[in-house]
């Protein structure tokens, strides 16, 4: 029964996507949105039913593998179109469908005046379907299918306003980097099949400890290839450059794909493949160190840049860095818990940002925003809740989840203490940049847009400009629309943000150390074979960690208050004093330039070389030669084409005669 519900979880978004995509001429716009919402909510309900079914099973058999039919069967190598349902995948299903439902409801209002309403909801439902395939996959091939589909959905949605040059370029960049990750995943799957003879999760995880010894080079290679996929999808160093550009997509997309769900796929992958990573501790450590580096670097960038959505994007990278550290050092349930709370508060932050960007007529620069506190009280409240949760203010969901990770690193001790210190610094920066947003946007004298909103009761309609380049937009197709919608005036947006706000505030209560460890207990059946299964800090250690986290967070918020409210001249002075550091941060540590220099330019040069030598000389010569031969041969046989039907019949007759005579002679 559980498997049936899980299949239904997959079915509904697919049906929704196809229905909306195929009926865009028939259905009125609002209905498309409703169909999209209904499909995702139905998937969420099925996910809950699957959860109930799964919880009904005894503890040790709490996993179901189900296969609809054989996807391929070649020489002893069979791939089933199969899913694997266990607490981990159900957890992801619930996070994905739950947050998606809210974001669909938000988009229903937010995208109201967009020209491609049907297209948007069709893509969005398709994305949810792909993500669910990824999460529910029962073997590595299905995982790759979901992985690639998710990459495509992300591409389609980033380039959603396809008349914007910047958007299409960002889409391509995201797609290319994601494909690099896909290749890592393919190689990993091939290596797994070569060594273990199967790609099914259950078989692979059972056989891996028998075949590999700990840290054997092949299992390390497999895990590193998996990590390439995970890094690319989750925007970790050095594959991080696409995520900030992905903010070209509509805000609900940033919220759903590039904050709450898709980018966490890498974390899920590591948690899912934990039996492999525990055989290759080196690879797991690499994952954790890369996560640490990403979270620190992304934190510094987030403090420097001024584009509202990009700040939140870098904070996403940073938070995913925390999750990588968690799953890298064996704190699987801590990582998954942070994944969930992060989905709540990051989606909320993006939604609030979207509301403010609408009020600014698509302007995204926080230097130009000021005094939105009075003009948009609801959005302001939600923004504050999101920032509190993000910075780990005591009592909020982020406090419980982030500090669980930090504390786990300290608990592991040894070299992981360095990670502990790094993550504490990261948490401090998190608090600064999240309250930088708050203190720059909300208080103070209202800017022109906020004032207009306050006085006229509706948002200002600016020139349709590209927020990145300032060019005038092509308003014919693929354009956001004249009207903008803000949470204050649109019920759907308000509802979605309200629910997420409540979840961001109290979502952490499910996992209070020593009181209610729901997530850990729920995920226990999945991770019970893990070597870290029994390892977790004692209750008092956990509370000490939480207290440290609270101190750090409050200190960070206070610093932000000092920098941006009390002494607004300080940031400028820092900027001129440490101009080198500032330039480095504001240019995103030159990540794009480094990649350009190391990879893009050599590839381009190679391409030019091939164009000059091979294309001109070899290929053109060969094609021209073939064409010439064909032409002269055609001239030779043209006379046979008399156009006479009976002539053709005779030619055919000669042909048959020749064949018959040949066989006769051969039979003698």
């Amino acid at each position, binding site marked *: 029964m559980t498997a049936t519900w899980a299949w239904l979880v997959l079915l509904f978004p697919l049906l929704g996507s196809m229905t909306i995509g195929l009926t865009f001429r028939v259905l009125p716009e609002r209905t498309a949105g409703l169909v999209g919402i209904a499909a995702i909510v139905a998937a969420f309900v099925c996910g809950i039913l699957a959860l109930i079914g799964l919880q009904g099973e005894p503890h040790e058999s709490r996993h179901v593998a189900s296969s609809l039919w054989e996807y391929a069967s070649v020489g002893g190598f069979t791939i089933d179109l199969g899913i694997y349902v266990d607490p981990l995948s159900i957890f992801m299903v619930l996070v994905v469908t739950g947050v998606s439902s809210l974001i669909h409801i938000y988009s229903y209002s937010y995208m109201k005046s967009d020209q491609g309403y049907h297209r948007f909801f069709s893509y969005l439902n398709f994305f949810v379907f792909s993500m669910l395939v990824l999460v529910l996959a029962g073997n590595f091939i299905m995982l790759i299918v979901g992985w690639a589909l998710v990459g495509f959905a992300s591409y389609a949605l980033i380039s959603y306003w396809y008349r914007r040059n910047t958007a299409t370029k960002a889409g391509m960049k995201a797609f290319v980097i994601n494909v690099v990750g896909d290749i890592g995943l393919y190689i990993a799957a091939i290596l797994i099949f070569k060594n273990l003879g199967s790609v099914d999760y259950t078989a692979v995880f059972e056989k891996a400890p028998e075949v590999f010894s700990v840290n054997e080079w092949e299992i390390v290679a497999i895990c590193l290839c998996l990590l390439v996929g995970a890094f690319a999808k989750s925007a970790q160093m050095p594959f991080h450059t696409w995520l900030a550009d992905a903010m070209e997509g509509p805000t609900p997309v940033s919220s759903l794909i590039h904050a709450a769900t898709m980018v966490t796929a890498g974390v899920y992958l590591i948690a899912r493949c934990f039996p492999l990573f525990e055989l290759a501790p080196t690879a797991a450590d690499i994952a954790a160190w890369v996560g640490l580096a990403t979270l620190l670097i992304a934190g510094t960038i987030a403090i420097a840049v001024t584009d509202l959505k990009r700040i939140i994007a870098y904070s996403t990278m940073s938070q995913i860095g925390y999750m990588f550290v968690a799953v890298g050092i064996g704190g699987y349930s801590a990582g998954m818990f942070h994944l969930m709370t992060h989905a709540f508060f990051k989606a909320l932050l993006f939604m609030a940002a979207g509301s403010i960007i609408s009020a600014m007529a698509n302007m995204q620069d926080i230097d130009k925003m000021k005094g939105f506190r009075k003009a948009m009280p609801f959005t302001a409240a939600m923004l504050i809740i999101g920032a509190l949760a993000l910075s780990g203010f005591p009592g909020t969901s982020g406090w419980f989840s982030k500090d669980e990770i930090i504390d786990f690193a300290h608990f592991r001790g040894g070299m992981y203490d360095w990670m502990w210190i790094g993550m504490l610094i990261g948490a401090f920066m998190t608090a600064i940049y999240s309250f930088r947003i708050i203190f720059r946007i909300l208080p103070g004298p209202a800017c022109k847009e906020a004032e207009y909103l306050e006085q006229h009761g509706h948002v200002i309609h600016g020139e349709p400009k590209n927020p990145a380049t300032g060019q005038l937009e092509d308003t014919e197709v693929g354009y956001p629309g004249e009207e903008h919608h803000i949470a204050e005036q649109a019920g759907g947006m308000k509802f979605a943000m309200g629910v997420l706000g409540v979840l961001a505030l109290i979502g952490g209560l499910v996992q209070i150390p020593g009181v209610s460890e729901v997530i850990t207990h729920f995920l226990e059946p999945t991770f019970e074979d893990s070597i870290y299964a029994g390892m977790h800090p004692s209750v008092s250690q956990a509370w000490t960690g939480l207290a440290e986290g609270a101190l750090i967070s409050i200190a960070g918020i206070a610093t932000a208050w000092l920098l941006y409210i009390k002494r607004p001249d300080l940031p400028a002075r820092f900027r001129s004093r440490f101009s080198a550091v500032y330039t480095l941060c504001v240019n995103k540590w030159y990540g794009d330039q480094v990649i350009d220099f190391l990879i893009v330019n050599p590839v381009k040069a190679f391409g030019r070389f091939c164009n000059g030598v091979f294309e001109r000389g070899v290929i053109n010569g060969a094609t021209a030669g073939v064409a010439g031969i064909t032409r002269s041969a055609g001239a030779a046989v*043209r*006379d*046979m*084409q*008399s*156009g*006479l*039907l*009976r002539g053709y*019949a*005779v030619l055919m*007759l000669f042909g048959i005669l020749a064949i018959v005579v040949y066989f006769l002679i051969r039979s003698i």
Partner: protein
Amino acid sequence: MNIEWFLVLSALLFTVGLIGVIVRRNPVVILLCLELMLSAGALALLAFSRMLGNQDGQVFVLIVLVVAACEVVVGLGLVVAMYRRRLPLDVDEMKELKG
């Protein structure tokens, strides 16, 4: 009755039809000759079917009859269309395919 006889008869009928296709120029007659060739093929199939004591060949013949019927319908449609357009009913007149 030896199967060879049937096969030789089939080959003979096929040859007669083939000669007709090559020699005659009226499209209606050419179609008739194609029918002859198809029925010769059907006869061979039936002979083999009898030889092997297996009825699959008979189903095959039935499908051949269906194909023949389709060919008749389209062919006669072409003839009627040619007539409608006042084209001479002579296959040698239609040689736009000349290279």
